[in-house]
C-alpha cells in the first residue's frame, strides 16, 4: 500500500558517479503531493540520471530516493505502486501492435489494468492505430503511447522525461493540456523538460540542475519574484528621475531606455523611491513590475550570468550561485 502521508518524491544527497565523472552530485528533491514539478537543466545536467535512480533503474552511488516513502532499491516493484512514467523516449516492442504492447504492460501491472486499455487509447487518441505495429509509429505517436502506458497504472505520481520532445506544435499543445488535466485530477507530476515555456505554463514548483547539482529548488513564483523583481518607470522627467533612482538605497541595475527607466528593487525600496520622486516634483506616469521569465532565470542560474559558462560541477555551481545572489535569487545549498 502506498504511504499516504509520505511525499511523492524525496531525494536526499543523491549521487551517481561513472568512474571519475559525477553525473549527479548530492541532489535533494522534494516533490509534494499535488505538485506539477518542473525538473530543468541543460543537456548532461543529470536530470535523466536522477529520474532513472528515482524509478530504480540505476543504483545511486550515494544517497537515497523514496517514492511515497519507499526506496525502489529496498522495496523493488512495490516502491513503484502508484507511480508511472518514462525516462528518455518511451520504448515499446516494435514487432507488437500498440494494443498488444499495452496488454503486455497491463499484464505486468496487474490490478485490472487490462480493463483500462480502451480508455487510455481514447485519452491519447490512438484508438484507430491500436492494431498497428508500433514499429511503424511516428515519434509523436510513441510519446502518446508512452503516456497511455503510464496512465494504465492509474498513477498518483507521473514521471515524464521530455514528454513533448519531437512533437509538432499541435502535439505539444495537446500534451500540455493533458498534463494540466492530469494535474487537475490530483496526479502529482514530475516533469523533466527543456521546454521552458512549457514548464513556466504548467509547473508550480521547479528544481533547476546544472552539472549534476541543484542550483534552485522551490516555487516557480518565488523564483520569478526573487530573480526578476524588476520595474519599468515612466516619469515626467526621466533624466532627472534616473539621478534620483541611482541615489536611492537598495535599488540596482538602473538604466534608461526608449520606454523609460528600468531597475531592480524590492517593494519597500520602490515605495521610498516614489516619495523621493515626489519630493523632487517628478510625476510618475507609470510604474509597472516586470517579472523575469523562466528562461532569463534558467540561463542566469545555469550559465553563471549572461554569456558566462561554468567549467565543471563546482565552478559552474559557484558561478550560478554568485549570479543568482546578485540578482536576488536564492540558490540551493
Amino acid at each position, binding site marked *: *500500500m*502506498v504511504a499516504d502521508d509520505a511525499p511523492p518524491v524525496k531525494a536526499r544527497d543523491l549521487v551517481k558517479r561513472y568512474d571519475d565523472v559525477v553525473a549527479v552530485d548530492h541532489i535533494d528533491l522534494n516533490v509534494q503531493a499535488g505538485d506539477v514539478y518542473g525538473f530543468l537543466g541543460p543537456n548532461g545536467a543529470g536530470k535523466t540520471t536522477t529520474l*532513472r535512480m528515482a*524509478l*530504480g*533503474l*540505476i*543504483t545511486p552511488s550515494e544517497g537515497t530516493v523514496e517514492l511515497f516513502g519507499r526506496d525502489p532499491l529496498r522495496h*523493488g*516493484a*512495490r516502491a*513503484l*505502486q*502508484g507511480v*508511472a*512514467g*518514462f*525516462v*528518455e*523516449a*518511451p*520504448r*515499446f*516492442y*516494435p*514487432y*507488437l501492435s500498440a494494443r*498488444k504492447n499495452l496488454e*503486455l*504492460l497491463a*499484464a*505486468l*501491472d*496487474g*490490478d*485490472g489494468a487490462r480493463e483500462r486499455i480502451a*480508455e*487510455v487509447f*481514447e*485519452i*491519447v*487518441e490512438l484508438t484507430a492505430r491500436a492494431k498497428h505495429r508500433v514499429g511503424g509509429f511516428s515519434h509523436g505517436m510513441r510519446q*502518446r503511447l508512452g*503516456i497511455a*502506458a503510464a*496512465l494504465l*497504472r*492509474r*498513477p*498518483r505520481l507521473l514521471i515524464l522525461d521530455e514528454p513533448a520532445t519531437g512533437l509538432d506544435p499541435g502535439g505539444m499543445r*495537446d*500534451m500540455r*493540456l*493533458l*498534463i*494540466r*488535466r*492530469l494535474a487537475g*485530477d*490530483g496526479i502529482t507530476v514530475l516533469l523533466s523538460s527543456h521546454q521552458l515555456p512549457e514548464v513556466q505554463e504548467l509547473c508550480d514548483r521547479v528544481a533547476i540542475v546544472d552539472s549534476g547539482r541543484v542550483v534552485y529548488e522551490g516555487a516557480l513564483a518565488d523564483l520569478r519574484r526573487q530573480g526578476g523583481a524588476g520595474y519599468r518607470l515612466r516619469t515626467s522627467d526621466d533624466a532627472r528621475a534616473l539621478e534620483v533612482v541611482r541615489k536611492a538605497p537598495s535599488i540596482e541595475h538602473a538604466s534608461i531606455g526608449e520606454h523609460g527607466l528600468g531597475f531592480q528593487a524590492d517593494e519597500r525600496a520602490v515605495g521610498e523611491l516614489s516619495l523621493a520622486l515626489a519630493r523632487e516634483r517628478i510625476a510618475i506616469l507609470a510604474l509597472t513590475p516586470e517579472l523575469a521569465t523562466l528562461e532569463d532565470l534558467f540561463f542566469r542560474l545555469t550559465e553563471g550570468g549572461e554569456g558566462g559558462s561554468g567549467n565543471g560541477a563546482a565552478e559552474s555551481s559557484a558561478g550560478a550561485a554568485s549570479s543568482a545572489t546578485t540578482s536576488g535569487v536564492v540558490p540551493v545549498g
Partner: protein
Amino acid sequence: MSAASASPPLLAAPAAGARRPSTLTVWRWELRKLISQKRTFLGFGLAVVLPLIFVIVQSLREPHDHGHGSDSIFTSQITQSGLATPVLMLHFLSVFMLPLIASLVAGDIVANEDGNGTLKTILTRSVDRGQVFTAKALAAMLYATLAVFLSAAVATAAGVAAWGFNSITTFSGTVVSAPKGLLLVFAANAVYLIPLLTVASIAVLLSTTTRNSAASVVGSIGVVILLFIVAQIPGLEGVRPYLLTEQFEAWHGLLRTPTDWGPILHSLWVCALYAVPSLGAGYLVFLRRDVAGG
C-alpha cells in the same frame, strides 16, 4: 489528445493493496514476445529443415552406400528403421547446431531488450527484477526444449515415412521393438536437454552481462568450441569427464541394454556445476545492474 474537453477525472484512484502479477504471467508474456519475433522461427526452421534434408539425401543414395565407413551402429540401420533417423540427427546436431539454436534465443533474451530500451519499460511496472529474469530464463529453456523435440519429431516422422516403423538395434546390439525404440528416442532427447539447457544458461548469463546479443550468441558457442579444444589437448585427459561438451553424449547410456545410468547421472551433476553458477550469477547481475540502455 482528448485532454482539453471537460469531463470527469481521467482515471480513477488506484486501489489500495493492488494484486501484483505472478512470475507465470511474466513468463507467458515472454513466450508471446518470442513467438512474435522472426528469429524465433529461424531456430525452429533449422530444427525442422535439417532432418528433412538428411532424409531426402539418404533416400537418394544407393542402398549399398549406407553404413560404409561408419562407426555408428545406427548409420547402418538408416534404411532398415525410420527410428535410426532421429538417433542420427541427435548425434549430428547435438554438437553444434542445437547449442546454436538454443543460444540464438537465450543469448538474445536479455541483451535485445536492453539494447532496445524495452527493459526499462518492463522494469518500471509492477514486477520485480527477479521475476523478469526467472521468466526470461524459463522462456529460453522452453525454447531450447521445443527445438530439440521438434527436431526429434520431424526426424522421426520423416524417417518412419521413408523407411518404416521398425524395430531397431541399440548400441549394445540388442534389438528393441519399434514402440520401445520410439520411447528411447524421445528419452534420449530428454537426456540431451541436460547439457543443452546448460549451454542456454551460459547464454543467458552472457546476455545479461554483455548486453549484446551477437556477443552472447557467439560467446556461448565459443565456450562450447573452447571446451571441445580443451578435450583434445594431450595431458588433459583427466579433465575430460568434467567438460560440458563431454556430456553431449550422455544420452548414449539410454540406448544400451541394460540402460547405463552412469553417464546420465554424471552429466546431471557436472552440468549443474556449469548451469547453477551461470544462472545464479546472471540473476544477481540482473538484480543489481544499472538499466540505462536504449
